[in-house]
């Protein structure tokens, strides 16, 4: 997609004018060279180099002209879910990388990759070195279904499946077997629809994206022809948004395969729905009506009122060959509609089961309060409970839902709380803090070498070069070791 890259570059340079003049009002002569002089401004440390981290940094840099921000990231590469979560066929969504790149290149900001906070350095050590520490490390775990057979071969979390086709190093050995005809996805959010779409999309389209080459090859040999997307409640509770549904409805060489029974009473309910829900539901009803040509081999469909109760194994007891679903009815009304089992069961034969019921944050340091039930860091407006100087933004703050814009607004809120606290004296920024040099020294003692932003740019250049020869915007490196070798070359 050379054209996309060109447009992104042009767009990026337009955005550059915007971003740079907004953020750098700092006079270089006064501030001194980054990292060398003892900049007396507030020093903030951000844990996590994804959208939450970058948007929080952006807002802090803009609001306080003497503030400096350091972003620590576990992987050698930045951008988090923008790189590893957003689907390969949604390159426009990844345009935010341009604004994040500007932020990382800002003279009062520095990026430190290959640092595992909680292991290589503790939160307490960061709090000693900085005036404020912001946790923006997202949700790297996933909610399990908690049913028998979940551990059988052929069952994956959507997080891992998405990580696999997006080149997340820890998922490179996933090797999902795509030799079955039917795939069942549990969950009906945008991630579930992304997975369905990638499983059924024409290869012609996928091969020009940044999907990994091994995923592309696996999909080229895929026998999957039917994808069922299963939810425990009804059509009016579906969690996906209309853009993603429209993409499924318009997916070439596929047809929709829904059950009209699942839609009883829905047409009557339409008139009372708010516009977004109404349009989404109308589009679904249209897909139910226009069943499409039976001759079209690939199909996809929602299945409502169904909860997974067991993954069924084949004769050898090792591999999934089906899933047992409990049929539900809805109780309650409005926002609190819930699914109650009817006692009826239904078995669906399938060889690939993908559970897309939510990502989940994990605690990374015992010094940080963590709510295991909600799987978030307990906080008030981004201020971590009972812990002065510690803040959070993004999914680790409010849970793993929402699009990039949601996280953006959330991160701006946290930045605002930090600024307020600085201005009110709740954060004492008059005391001198050492910042990055202290942490770098600690890391050096522990044999941890960081990846700075210009070094990520070497990895970036290498990926783009490899992609070029394949007609793709980039070919992602899958090995952390390879990334580090190139970064430090």
């Amino acid at each position, binding site marked *: 997609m050379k054209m996309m890259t060109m447009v992104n570059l*042009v767009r990026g340079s337009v955005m550059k004018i915007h971003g740079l003049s907004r953020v750098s009002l700092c006079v270089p002569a006064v501030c001194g060279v980054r990292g060398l002089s003892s900049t007396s401004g507030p020093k903030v440390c951000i844990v996590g180099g994804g959208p939450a981290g970058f948007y929080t940094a952006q807002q802090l840099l803009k609001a306080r002209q003497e503030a400096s921000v350091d972003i620590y990231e576990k992987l050698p590469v930045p951008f988090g879910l923008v790189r590893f979560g957003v689907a390969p066929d949604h390159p426009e969504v990844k345009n935010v990388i341009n604004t994040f790149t500007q932020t990382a290149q800002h003279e009062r900001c520095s990026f430190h990759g290959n640092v595992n906070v909680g292991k290589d350095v503790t939160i307490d050590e960061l709090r000693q070195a900085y005036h404020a520490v912001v946790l923006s490390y997202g949700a790297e775990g996933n909610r399990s279904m908690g049913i028998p057979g979940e551990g059988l071969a052929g069952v994956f979390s959507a997080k891992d499946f998405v990580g696999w086709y997006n080149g997340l190093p820890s998922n490179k050995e996933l090797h999902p077997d795509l030799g079955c005809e039917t795939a069942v996805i549990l969950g009906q959010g945008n991630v579930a629809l992304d997975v369905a779409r990638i499983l059924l999309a024409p290869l012609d389209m996928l091969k020009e994206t940044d999907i990994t080459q091994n995923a592309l090859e696996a999909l080229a040999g895929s026998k999957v022809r039917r994808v069922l997307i299963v939810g425990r409640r009804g059509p009016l509770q579906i969690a996906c948004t209309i853009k993603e549904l429209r993409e499924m409805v318009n997916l*070439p060489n596929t047809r929709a395969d829904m059950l009209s029974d699942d839609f009883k009473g829905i047409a009557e309910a339409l008139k009372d729905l708010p*516009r977004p829900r109404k*349009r989404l539901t109308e589009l679904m009803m249209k897909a139910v009506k226009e069943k499409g040509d039976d001759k079209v081999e690939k199909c996809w469909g929602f299945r409502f009122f169904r909860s997974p109760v067991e993954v069924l194994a084949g004769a050898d007891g090792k591999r999934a060959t089906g899933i047992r679903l409990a049929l539900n009815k809805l109780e309650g009304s409005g926002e609190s509609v819930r699914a109650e089992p009817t006692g009826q069961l239904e078995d669906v034969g399938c060889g690939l089961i993908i559970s897309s019921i939510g990502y989940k944050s994990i605690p990374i340091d015992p010094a940080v309060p963590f709510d295991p039930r909600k799987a978030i860091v307990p906080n008030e*407006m981004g201020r971590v409970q009972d812990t002065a100087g510690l803040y959070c933004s993004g999914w680790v703050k409010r849970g793993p839902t929402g699009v990039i814009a*949601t996280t953006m607004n959330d991160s701006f809120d946290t930045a605002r709380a930090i600024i307020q606290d600085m201005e009110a004296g709740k954060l004492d920024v008059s005391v001198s803090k050492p910042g990055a040099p202290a942490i770098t020294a600690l890391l050096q003692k522990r044999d941890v070498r960081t990846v700075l932003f210009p070094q990520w740019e070497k990895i970036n250049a290498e990926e783009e070069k490899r992609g070029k020869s394949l007609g793709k915007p980039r070919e992602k490196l899958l090995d952390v070791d390879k990334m580090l070798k190139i970064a430090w070359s």
Partner: protein
Amino acid sequence: MAFRKCVLLRSSLAPMCYPGFMRTQPRFLHTVPRLSSQSQENGSSGSKVLVHFVNQSGVKSSVFVTEGETLLDVVIKKNIDISGFGACEGTLACSTCHLIFEESVYDKLEPMLDEEVDMLDLAYGLTKTSRLGCQVTVERWMDGMTVHVPQEIKDQRGKQEAVSSK
């Protein structure tokens, strides 16, 4: 001009660029080629239109803009201070260029395509006179209009203290 070529090629790619894909083209396909045909650097062609922007903190910026530009282009070029505006850079993949119009102006804007409504419906602080800035092209009759973004909630801390004193 390289930029024009880029965007014309871009226009065939649309947010959903499957081969043989047939549907109504989203707004930016019509506006962007017009944008590149205006020489905005020279400012010689297209009349100047006065537009007032009110940002999330209530701060007003008044700028003269060229007919034919989208409001997203205006915010970027004129450096209007609106936090996080235009994240997807005008490709109908987000809702961050959400702008609220005066009713009289809103009613005269060209109708929205499905793709705009799809994203607009996810915008924070949506109103009956909301549009996405990347889909609205400046025209002469808009001279003197005011657009604003949802106002940020002021003094969260004050609110909190009121709650905790219960």
